[in-house]
């Protein structure tokens, strides 16, 4: 019994995941304070660590076709414990969504449109996300490939425009920074872009065919990771050690593009690209949140919950942190620690338990 009546295809899942991961391109900028010019290594390591975990999500989805996360939790952990786990997930989705919305607001108030009131940006953005969610996952899945193509296009074109200003010796020396910082960086990167794909455990319940889930998830993750890598490499190659001075190295490197005095000051364009990608990410998160809550409460449709949740999200996003610095500091510590079990421990555990208990037992008549 699922709430969502729409179905998405595996290929659309690939693009959804890729776009989702690409949405965190500017989040990499926040780890630069920690990992400086070794960010690219951190991304690769995080990719290596998270790939098996993310693939375990796909295998879990394949094992329980058509069922989303809340239903899987109920089956694997029993009625009471399953609901507790689901509530933990819902809290995670709630908080992360507000962080992402806040990111957009910070993006604009810091760089692009500093005079605009913060809440107003949040409201407009959330309103569009709400509209996307009321249309359902099918519409988002249909247009996902446009977002991914736009993201890749922006990244590659900025990379190419900056080639003359790049100096690949800025990547050296490797392994300079103390390992604890690298470890924290790996933790952050594996949690924020890659780990947030745990949200897809709900979306995978809408697939019409779970045959190629694992392959598509892997490729989606790969495309997203490569995009992040291109961004990080570009910043390091152009700015080198000076990255840590800037609030956002990505913006700074874009500002250095100067093609024939016509294509200058293009930071707004990357702002647009980033907004579009975060929009996809936020809409997906919002959708996942609403479906998870409705599934938990046993509702027939998730539509009535959308607007109140949107209002709650906006207010949380506006008040949860005092400033962007607060945001960065807390995320780098508590933010990733409390969500680590959700991403790394619980889904593989669910898979293990499901394998041991031989779930799902639907053939033998034991239903949900």
């Amino acid at each position, binding site marked *: 019994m699922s709430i969502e009546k729409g179905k998405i295809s595996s290929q659309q899942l690939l693009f959804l995941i890729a776009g989702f991961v690409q949405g965190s391109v500017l989040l990499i900028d926040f780890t630069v304070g920690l990992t400086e010019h070794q960010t690219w290594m951190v991304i690769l390591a995080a990719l290596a660590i998270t790939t098996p975990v993310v693939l375990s999500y796909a295998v879990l989805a394949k094992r329980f076709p058509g069922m989303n996360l809340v239903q899987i939790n109920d089956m694997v952990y029993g009625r009471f414990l399953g609901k507790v786990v689901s509530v933990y997930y819902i809290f995670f989705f709630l908080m992360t969504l507000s962080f992402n919305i806040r990111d957009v607001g910070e993006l604009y108030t810091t760089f692009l449109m500093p005079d605009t009131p913060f809440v107003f940006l949040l409201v407009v953005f959330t309103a569009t996300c709400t509209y996307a969610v009321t249309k359902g996952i099918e519409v988002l899945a249909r247009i996902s490939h446009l977002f991914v193509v736009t993201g890749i296009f922006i990244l590659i074109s900025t990379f190419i425009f900056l080639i003359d200003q790049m100096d690949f010796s800025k990547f050296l020396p490797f392994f300079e920074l103390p390992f604890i910082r690298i470890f924290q960086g790996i933790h952050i990167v594996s949690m924020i872009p890659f780990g947030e794909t745990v949200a897809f455990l709900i979306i995978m319940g809408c697939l019409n065919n779970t045959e190629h889930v694992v392959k598509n998830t892997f490729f989606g993750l790969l495309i997203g990771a490569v995009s992040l890598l291109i961004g990080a490499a570009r910043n390091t190659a152009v700015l080198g050690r000076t990255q840590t001075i800037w609030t956002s190295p990505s913006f700074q490197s874009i500002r250095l593009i100067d093609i024939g005095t016509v294509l200058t000051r293009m930071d707004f364009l990357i702002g647009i690209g980033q907004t579009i990608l975060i929009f996809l990410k936020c809409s997906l998160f919002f959708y996942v949140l609403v479906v998870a809550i409705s599934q938990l409460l046993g509702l027939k449709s998730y539509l*009535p919950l959308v607007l109140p949740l949107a209002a709650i999200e906006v207010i949380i996003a506006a008040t949860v942190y005092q400033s962007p610095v607060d945001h960065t500091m807390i995320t780098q510590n508590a933010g990733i620690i409390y969500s680590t079990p959700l991403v790394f421990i619980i889904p593989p555990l669910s898979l293990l338990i499901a394998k041991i208990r031989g779930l799902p037992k639907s053939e033998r008549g034991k239903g949900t």
Partner: protein
Amino acid sequence: MIFIILIYAFIIIINVPGLLKRKEWRELTAFSILYVIALVLGLMYVLDIPIPSPMKGLQHLIVDILGIEYPQG
């Protein structure tokens, strides 16, 4: 202030008549609970009452009580 009232009224106008007509009581209760929470939070925000931030609580819990923290380097 006036925006808050308009927006919240708007939310009710869109959702409630449909729910009532189709007699979906469960959805209506869920909606009302969330709506009340949203209303309270919204009013607190507009009236400049400080809203407790969950992340601060978590930070306190994890860093001070459990002691897990990355060294600030």
